[in-house]
């Protein structure tokens, strides 16, 4: 299979490999390890209106087959990103996706407005796995009505940019959230964000993260992520981008087999910084071996 490109809701990707938010910096950190232009997309670290310091240290902990993080969305702020980082990304060749973080729907909308004006931004990804400060800290993504309201608010200000909503797996019925967000106008869904978790040290009797609770990612979460993507793909008509624990080309194809149009890779970028670049190169021979000649023929064809 030669033609790896996919287009979903107007978002064109030269291949279905996107680096996941928070695991690939602002992209430039990895230019020493591969050609950024070879990637399908780069999803940058969650951006907020004002710069953020994030949580106290330690904010990462290794766990079997994965890791916990509670970075607390440290970022340089949208203005600095647009001025100092975006111009250096190869956005004409590789889709640069802005990941949005805010404390309420109004702030989300304002952020969308700023980014909608930027030629270098191919799509907006809305991170609803964070607390709604106005609603006492319940996560936007845990309440279908709240998730829908944020989606609508962003969609209104996003202009022609496709709006992708990133779902949290920390819910009882992820398909219900997916349907609510679809109805509110989302163009694409991406999932999953991290699974809520914790780790403790018995000798010091302390949690391994200063924030106590953090988000689990990496191969440990892949079965949960795959189940979520499968359920969501069956529940909605808009395209889905799958992620969670992808650490090989086979892993990536599993997500496409259950219905995803593209994938994001996160924690695997820490296994080795050239992971995403290698994944792009490993897909064609694997597809060849599996006798796949087009994405259309393969996507969502899980036999059940």
């Amino acid at each position, binding site marked *: 299979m030669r033609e790896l490109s996919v287009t979903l809701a107007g978002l064109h990707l030269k291949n279905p490999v996107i680096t996941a938010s928070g695991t690939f910096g602002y992209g430039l950190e990895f230019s020493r390890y591969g050609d950024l232009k070879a990637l399908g997309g780069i999803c940058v670290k969650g951006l907020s209106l004002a710069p953020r310091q994030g949580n*106290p240290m330690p904010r990462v902990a290794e766990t079997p087959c994965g890791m916990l993080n509670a970075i607390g969305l440290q970022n340089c702020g949208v203005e600095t990103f647009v001025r100092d980082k975006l111009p250096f990304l190869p956005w004409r060749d590789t889709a640069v996706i802005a990941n949005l973080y805010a404390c309420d729907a109004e702030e989300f909308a304002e952020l969308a407005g700023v980014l909608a004006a930027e030629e270098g931004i191919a799509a907006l990804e809305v991170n609803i796995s964070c607390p709604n400060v106005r609603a006492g800290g319940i996560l936007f993504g845990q309440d279908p009505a709240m998730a829908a309201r944020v989606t609508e608010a962003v969609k209104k200000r996003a202009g022609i940019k496709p709006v992708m909503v990133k779902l949290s797996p920390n819910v009882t019925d992820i398909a219900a959230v997916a349907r609510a967000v679809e109805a509110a106008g989302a163009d694409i869904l991406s999932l999953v*964000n991290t699974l809520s978790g914790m780790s403790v040290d018995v000798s010091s009797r302390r949690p391994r993260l200063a924030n106590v609770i953090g988000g689990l990612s990496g191969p440990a979460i892949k079965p949960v992520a795959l189940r979520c993507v499968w359920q969501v793909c069956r529940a909605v008509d808009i395209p889905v981008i799958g992620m969670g624990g992808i650490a090989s080309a086979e892993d990536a194809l599993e997500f496409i087999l259950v219905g995803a149009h593209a994938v994001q890779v996160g924690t695997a970028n*820490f296994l080795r910084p050239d992971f995403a670049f290698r994944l792009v190169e490993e897909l064609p021979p694997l597809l060849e071996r599996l006798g796949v000649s087009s994405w259309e023929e393969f996507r969502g064809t899980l036999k059940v």
Partner: protein
Amino acid sequence: MADAGGCREVAVLSRGAESPEGERHGLWRLAVENPGWTKAVAGQFAMLRPLRFGRELTWARPLSLFGVTPERVEFFIQVAGRGTAHLAAMNPGDRLVMWGPLGRGFAVEPDTPTLLLAGGVGLAPFAPYIAAHPRPDNLRLVFGHRPPLAAYPFAKMAATIQAESFHEEKPGDLDRFTALLRERLADYANGLVLACGPRPFLAAVADMGRAAGARVQVSLENRMACGVGACLGCVEKDAKGELVQTCVRGPVFWARELAAFDGGLETPGSREGCACGN
């Protein structure tokens, strides 16, 4: 294109301890193929991930450069947990993924009297520092250790510069070691002091060095997931209150550039934090 300083899979060339004491105390040298590194500075580090980690051990382990020749890159490893146990048990031919050289190394000021202070495995970066220094007569080393001296590559380093060691065996020894450091630091007003070792050691050196009027650099060992500035797991608060990635802006810093080492009151950690795992 990935350059020679990118990420490469390399083979182990050799592994060995300095002495039977080294073996007994889990202190090992590991030499791997040089993937084409030409420019490396003492104090820089590499991320090493044996293929045997599989998917179980997620992160690569950060290790200081202990020696770089056109053929090999060497490390000096103390077994501290599962990852370093894997690394210290690798045999010639075993493969690992390695990226580097990373971060910023120690300052070299040939004509400035320079005091090297090492605690335990923090001795590692000073081997290449001494080897590359144009004026070894300006260098002096003080090395504090718990396992026996023979476990460390100290003798070879002491052969080329003025060096002394301090064996910490019983609880009261720490105070005597601190007193020794204070005494040595007193001779370095306006001199350069470079420190590598456990964090409390670095904090003590920064305090005493400031009091002595020395310019101090410390090498931090914050937990690292990526080593390239992307995960924001390894950050440290600088003197301006910004959180900076120690893997790219460090691991070596001027003590006065860091909130925890500049002698001022440390500002409490940010509380704007958020409950989510991002």
